């Protein structure tokens, strides 16, 4: 229970997590799926959620937190933006202008990689290779890979994502 006595995990989230149990011989293996479930719903995994996940899986909260922090993937302090844009910075994209696109987007949105716009619409993340190198430079946002990016295409994406640009 959190400070105000309410759980962060909703019955729907708990049901989603428990649906993974039959897949594995123990509950600990459900750690990563559970973190994904919570992250999909809340856009972050606050400490209280870690405590509740641990309760569901029969683990110590520290064990779940240990796994969570390893990946540097799940935000804990605040939810990421409505859109989370993973901008690739690895070699195939970098050779074709990926870092310029990243710099341009950050400038236009007025944030640094890892930050969220003040209106909560967009988080820009620096990603390592997205495995879409034939379309470099590229961005993964939600389930969509945006391909062969240019600054113009990036501007159009920012508009689509509801970010006012500074350009």
């Amino acid at each position: 229970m959190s400070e105000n006595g309410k759980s962060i995990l909703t019955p729907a989230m708990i049901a989603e997590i428990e649906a993974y149990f039959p897949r594995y011989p123990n509950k600990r293996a459900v750690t990563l799926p559970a973190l994904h479930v919570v992250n999909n719903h809340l856009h972050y995994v606050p400490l209280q959620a870690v405590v509740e996940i641990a309760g569901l899986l029969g683990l110590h909260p520290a064990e779940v937190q240990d796994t969570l922090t390893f990946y540097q993937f799940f935000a804990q302090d605040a939810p990421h933006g409505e859109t989370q844009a993973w901008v690739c910075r690895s070699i195939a994209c970098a050779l074709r202008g990926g870092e310029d696109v990243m710099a341009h987007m950050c400038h236009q949105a007025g944030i640094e990689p890892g930050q969220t716009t003040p209106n909560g619409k967009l988080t820009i993340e620096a990603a390592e290779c997205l495995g879409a190198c034939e379309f470099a430079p590229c961005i993964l946002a939600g389930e969509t890979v945006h391909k062969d990016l240019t600054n113009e295409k990036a501007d159009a994406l920012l508009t689509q994502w509801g970010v006012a640009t500074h350009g």
Partner: protein
Amino acid sequence: MAEFQPVLLANVGKPDSHRIAVYEAAGGYSALKKALKEMSPEQVVELVKSSGLRGRGGAGFPCGLKWSFLPKNHPGPVYMCVNADESEPATFNNRILMEEDPHQLIEGTILGCYATRASTAYIYLRYEYPTALKRLESAIQEAYAKGYLGKNILGLDFSLDIYVHRGAAAYICGEETGLIESLEGKRAWPRIKPPFPAVEGLFRKPTVVNNVETLCCVTHIAARGADWFKSIGVPADPNNPRDAGSYGPKLYCISGHVNKPGCYELPLGISCGELIDRHGGGVWKGRKAKAAVPGGISMGLLTAAEFDCPLDFVGPGRYGCLGLGTAAVTVVDETVPIVDFLHNTTRFMAHESCGQCTPCREGTAWALSMLNRIKAGKGRLRDLDLILEIGDNIGIIPGTTICGLADGAAWPMKNAIRKFRGEFEEYIKRTNPRGHMETDAVPALQVIGVH
């Protein structure tokens, strides 16, 4: 020579190639039916052994031999992990296989599980492939509905469940024991071997870890036979007892500064230059190439003068590279400072080092901070020797780390500096005319995140 007809990519490009109806119309699942009816698990292992199939994930370990390491008459369960954590920079062949032809992988996985008597398979899929996730999950449902998965498959005493397990964007999960730890819900720290996963792997049970493309090859070996597979590629060198041959088709990825980046299926052994010119459409913008990565950045660097290197399991090693790796070629044109290339690859490795072994965690971060300094115009000639010293001392080859990530970090350092030393020295002297001869210690490492 006649054009090679794709086998692994044969269905790619057909409408609805990811659906079971399209797959079966092209003869899909007939190899499974035939093998389950006519062959014992041991015979499937022997078949794959005799085909000479070597793992496509990077290490090139003979697949049938790996399967034969499982303990005999183990009470079970035995697990299969499909390594779909394809994270090596510039590698995307497994993504195409899973998005466009997931049933080919599922058929290969069922065959692999039949051969190894595994009753559960987990496809460990990297986070960055949401389309592959959807396609795999619906393909698995289709396979259950057809009776290829579940209890008593095709009426036999053989049951199998396949689940997709989604990663969380960590390169180290592609290392087989890192993958196992991650699947178990822990931090993905690779294990000290032995025991190897075949003896004690996932949930402390015998486990086989195979790459996506490897299992797709199994499907075709079961359909067409070991002799067909062995007729493709480069035979083992009889004068080299350590060469197990480079048989079969291979998916080559080309990216970077070429006109036609993409994934091309070819017999193993094509030269780097031919791949770039004939299939990648040559270097873009009419420029010349400076260098190319032979198989993912971990494998190091070929100079343009070394493009005659055959891309098989022994070729890149003869040119000072680590190996074939994932056969993902990235071309770097003449305009790119090699300092920028090495900075990018080192940043990747420093970020992805899991932090478990000190030489890798500290070595990659130290090399990166020197490269940051060189790029900032404060490089010293001495830094080059220091980076080389790091490169020569981190990894399982010098024997200082648990897994091969550090070798993959070391090879670009060693190749780039040894093959392009003149350019590095010129860069440092030009950008730091006053300080390049300094040898005093430099304060403070930049703290960077690792996972």
